[in-house]
């Protein structure tokens, strides 16, 4: 868990360009447990900002600026060394693995031994209210259950920060409040800096942090 002196995620003069044209620029500090909400219409480059921070920017775009996490600039690290927990619109559970397989895949290698890894995955399932789902086929889960597994998977990897790309927009109203509450509660509990991209004002309100408008 990040400690408070160097904690948080700082976006230092981050700019996203498409073919020479600037789409957006951000200069912010997101403290542990806080959420920065980026709002804007589609095509405004807000998802691209997440791709730049997470390290999976499409080669068509270019980005610049420092992304400081835990006191060091991660903008030039390969994606797998940035430890970004990502949630997309779709839960994107790996369809060829069991629910448990998805979770075990996320557990850091430091947790050794398959029994220990399985135990941790089962605890994570219980933590999102899905006891006994370890051996299930992800495709047989309901939309809300899939969203919970996706959240559990992201948290198991012990990320340094969360990137949320409209993760609630495909859930129906009732479920949306529930999952949204769960995600922000867990992020606060783990003291993770969160960047949320959305076009739903209710998301921003639930996140409760700073909001910037782009596009």
């Amino acid at each position: 868990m990040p400690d408070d002196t160097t904690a948080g995620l700082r976006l230092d003069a981050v700019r996203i360009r498409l073919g020479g044209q600037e789409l957006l620029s951000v200069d912010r500090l997101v403290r542990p447990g806080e959420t920065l909400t980026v709002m804007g219409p589609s095509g405004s480059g807000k998802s691209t900002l997440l791709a730049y921070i997470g390290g999976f920017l499409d080669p068509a775009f270019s980005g610049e600026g420092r992304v400081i996490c835990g006191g060091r600039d991660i903008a030039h690290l390969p994606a797998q060394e940035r430890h970004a927990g990502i949630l997309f619109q779709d839960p994107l559970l790996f369809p060829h693995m069991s629910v448990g397989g998805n979770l075990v895949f996320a557990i850091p290698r430091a947790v050794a031994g398959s029994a220990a890894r399985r135990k941790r995955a089962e605890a994570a399932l219980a933590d999102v209210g899905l006891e006994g789902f370890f051996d299930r086929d992800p495709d047989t889960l309901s939309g809300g259950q899939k969203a919970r597994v996706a959240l559990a998977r992201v948290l198991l990897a012990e990320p340094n920060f969360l990137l949320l790309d409209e993760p609630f927009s495909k859930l129906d109203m009732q479920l949306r409040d529930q999952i949204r509450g769960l995600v922000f509660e867990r992020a606060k509990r783990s003291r993770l800096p969160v960047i949320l991209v959305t076009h739903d004002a209710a998301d921003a309100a639930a996140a409760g942090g700073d909001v910037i408008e782009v596009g």
Partner: protein
Amino acid sequence: MLRFAPLLAIAVLALPVIAGLAGTLAPAFGYLPALGGSEISLEPFRIVLGQPGLLRSCLIALASGVVTAAISTALVALFVGGWSETRTFRLIQSLVSPLLAVPHAAAAFGLAFMIAPSGFLARLVSPWATGWTRPPDWLIVNDSLGLSLMAGLIVKEVPFLLLITLAALPQVPLAASNRLAGSLGYGRVAGFLFTTWPAIYRQIRLAVSAVIAFASSAVDVAVILGPTTPASLPVRLVQWMNDPELTARFMASAGAVLQLGVTLAALLIWFGLEKLCAMATMRLCERGPRFRADAGIRMVALLAMATTAIAIFGGLGLLALWSVSGLWQFPHVLPASLSLRGWQQTLPGIGDPLTTTVTVGLAATVLSALIVVASLAREQETGRSGGNRALLFIYLPLLVPQAGFVFGLKLFLVHGGVGANWAALVFVHLVFVLPYVFLSLSAPWRAFDRRYEAIAAGLGKGRGTTFLAIRLPMLSRAILAAMAVGFAVSVGQYLPTVLIGAGRLVTITTEAVALGAGGNRRIIGIYAFLQMLLPFLGFALAALVPALLFRNRRAMKIA
């Protein structure tokens, strides 16, 4: 290392073609120092042009190319226009698609067994309707106009063009255009041809060119179904190429250059036809006729499509039946008895060709898959697909007639001291397998949802782990299917196998075509049956392995 993959792919595709063309052109103009040809001369061409009936041979090859492409393309256009988004369409599509895997030679034999005077169709109506108690003395198979040759080519090219068209469909707003044209009062077919077809055709144009190149130069189909006196140019070409007289190589090379010219002429005629059709369509469109009464043309397209499938499947069934038939006299529709004698006689000698077919096919397929996957992975890394230029390279071995460059390649190998060995055969198969593996795999590869990889990277997984644990298993079905296509292509290769194998390495396909001349229907049936069995096993495995691996994963069942 990944960086060199696209370069390797281009080398595999282009170098053999270029080397082969050079190796054909030089001897054609009398230059082949190893055989004492050190001066440029036109003598080889004089000899070729002096062959009796040469003009007719060339015209048949030319017509095969243009007519096959015209009928196949028109059929696919009318069928897609008339029936897309219907249940009938999906039914026919699932019926026609497997035909792609049937080797040309097997399909040609099946068709011959169907339509010959002593074939199944004649037996069905004899003697009660025709009064025939002996096969009529008609020249249906091997007719002098090459009509059955073209029919044999069409039934194999239609599935190919249909599949390429289906792959292009998602990139055009088909449903919306259909509804729009319909609301403006256009008939289904006319609406489709006016609005959607031009965009589709632009995407399948290379494939149509490949059909012309293949049909104008196909050897195996022409040996089985084509005219004999004189034979079409590619058949005579192979006779010259296999002439033990070393000096015949000059003439064979000049013949190969002539073949290139014939194919080029067919392509030029086709490009002219394209312009004419585009102009005529535009004129027609401007006058605004609606063509609402298109039920007739739709039915014709449907029947023709169904006939294609029935002809091949029926033919293949006949082949299988012949292989186990005892006495089966004309005009009996079914054999009087069944017997395994044919199999007992043939099986002992089948080991060698079978081993060669399977090992060469597997090696060429695995190598192709490795190169294609590496190239696609590199493309994904750089975000550059190479676009149309890359596609042209992919199609290059399919656009240059095999007879035009494989002989030159063989001369290169022979005079470079490389005899007929297994590795050389794998290499030359690779040239033709690679394009099909690429064409099959590129669409599903590019359609892969890359957010899965972003998530895996966020979970701290490196590129290698992400590739092996996420992308590879999720695409396993597509990769295996592409490999099955590649294996089927390798099994069906005739000319490259004959030329590079030089009689010392034989496959099921070369044996089948060679035995075709003997006319023993039981033996032909056995070899043709094996020819279709091997690709079928490939596809069955490709479907079975992922189904077993991911048997409890519902989302993996959708291809």
